[in-house]
């Protein structure tokens, strides 16, 4: 394998005169998106630190790919992407932080009026070669980064022409999915949820945002598992996964964090339009996270009406959950604190007879009593 030939290319100074001609434009603070941002000069990329400068350059140049760092565009992303779409034929790649992934996915899959606003997204931090690979196999496409080890794997230069970017993309997505998803319920796994919660909490500290954590488990799950068998247990877990996901808003992150334990992270989505403003909206009188409570109630009701098919006619209306809700900044300032407080509330709900969700620190803390 002639690895040397490709490394020479990677370390070569790009021909600046040809930038913009089928090259790559990166818009925003690239240090937030790439672990190797300091090496950007070694690649055929232009960087526009601000959105407006990015618009200007995108409209003037002939780029193959425009990468937009989502972080820092809050409130402006839709307008900017709409303008970018009109200004350039380039492939638009969103560079999303972990907590921005739900929005990025939505923009790529659904778009808004007038079509999709972006062609794909990448979860950051990542490597510059990942974006370069989007331009063409000849522009850095020989390198692929495996999310499992985070290392650039350099293919021989001669193999460049045979790399199928779509296939690489599919492989990457598959690996990402394996690493972050719970196989049984198809919800996020514990690792993803904890990391997401940590990132979104950091962001909320900086932006005075709100985060609410719901922890819940299925009442008497052990009994179903032991008496009716694991197939029934698995079906109950899958039902819980489907119903909780359906009850939540698109940007809330739902995960199965262990046996029959689930968690939901409710947070302020900075990209939501004003008619849905305040994702983790509070009641002005009580400071309660009203939307999180409403979602939790909705799920509690849906799960109570669910049917466990494997149990036949007896399988309807038998399922209940117990849970705890803790909020940042009210109930804790770290993920560990929020988990601990929510877990305590959950245990209290169990002790008081199950089938209830308690809000941390409230005298009448069953959410059923909160309007």
């Amino acid at each position, binding site marked *: 394998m002639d690895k040397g030939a490709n490394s020479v290319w990677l370390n070569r100074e790009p021909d600046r005169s040809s930038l913009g001609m089928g090259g790559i434009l990166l818009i925003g603070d690239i240090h937030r998106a790439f672990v190797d941002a300091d090496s950007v000069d070694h690649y055929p990329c232009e960087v526009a630190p*601000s959105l*407006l400068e990015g*618009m200007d350059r*995108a409209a003037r140049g002939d780029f193959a790919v425009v990468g937009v760092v989502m972080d820092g565009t809050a409130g402006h992303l839709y307008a900017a992407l709409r*303008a*970018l779409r009109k200004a350039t034929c380039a492939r638009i790649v969103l560079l999303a932080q972990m907590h921005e992934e739900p929005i990025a996915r939505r923009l790529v899959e659904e778009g808004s009026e007038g079509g999709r606003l972006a062609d794909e997204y990448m979860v950051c931090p990542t490597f510059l070669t990942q974006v370069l690979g989007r331009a063409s196999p000849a522009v850095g496409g020989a390198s692929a980064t495996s999310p499992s080890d985070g290392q650039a794997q350099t293919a021989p230069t001669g193999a460049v022409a045979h790399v199928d970017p779509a296939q690489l993309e599919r492989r990457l997505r598959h690996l990402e999915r394996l690493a972050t998803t719970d196989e049984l319920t198809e919800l996020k796994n514990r690792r993803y949820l904890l990391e997401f919660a940590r990132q979104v909490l950091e962001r909320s500290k900086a932006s005075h945002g709100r985060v609410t954590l719901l922890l819940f488990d299925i009442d008497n799950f052990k009994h179903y598992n032991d008496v009716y068998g694991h197939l029934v247990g698995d079906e109950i877990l899958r039902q819980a996964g489907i119903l909780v996901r359906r009850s939540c808003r698109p940007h809330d992150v739902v995960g199965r964090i262990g046996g029959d334990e689930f968690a939901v992270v409710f947070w302020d989505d900075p990209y939501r339009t004003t008619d849905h403003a305040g994702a983790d909206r509070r009641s002005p009188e009580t400071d309660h996270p009203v939307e999180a409570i409403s979602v939790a109630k909705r799920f509690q009701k849906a799960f109570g009406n669910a049917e466990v098919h494997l149990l036949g006619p007896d399988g309807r209306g038998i399922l209940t959950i117990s849970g705890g809700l803790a909020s940042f900044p009210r109930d804790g300032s770290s993920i560990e604190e929020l988990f601990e407080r929510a877990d305590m509330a959950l245990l209290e709900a169990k002790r008081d007879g199950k089938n209830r969700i308690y809000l941390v620190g409230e005298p009448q803390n069953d959410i059923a009593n909160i309007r």
Partner: protein
Amino acid sequence: MTRNARVHPHIIVVGERQNRIVTEAVRLAGEYDLVVTRCDDIYSAATELARHPDRFLMVVGAFRQLSRNKYDFFSLAQRNGVHCCCLLDREADIERDKILAVVRLGVRLAGEPADIRSFLDERLVAGRHRSAEADREHGFGEEFRASEDEIRALLGQESDG
């Protein structure tokens, strides 16, 4: 009369169609026989500036709209030799320092939509003698900058002296 797109004055009006400054600017553009492009936001306006580098361009919009994204649009316009006129909402709580900084970039402030007319008059007269290219190279002429007193008048403030 046929228009020569390269030299015919072109006005980019930023804001929603129903906005009073947009309505007034579009009406005046018709009166002055200007080429008009309306953009919903500064991002579309930025791409319009980039699309027409050789044209004699002017931009009109509300201060609140044009100053979004940390006032970057004004710097971009200045780099492109494009003059901007913004309508300043007297009720808006805008820091005086920010307004001064914008004025220093050569942005013309308007207290009323009707003031756009004097901006157009000045620009159209000056534009005959001074190209956007010259503005890009040498910066805007002092004649387009509001004085401290004019700013105070717009803001409804008393003079410090």
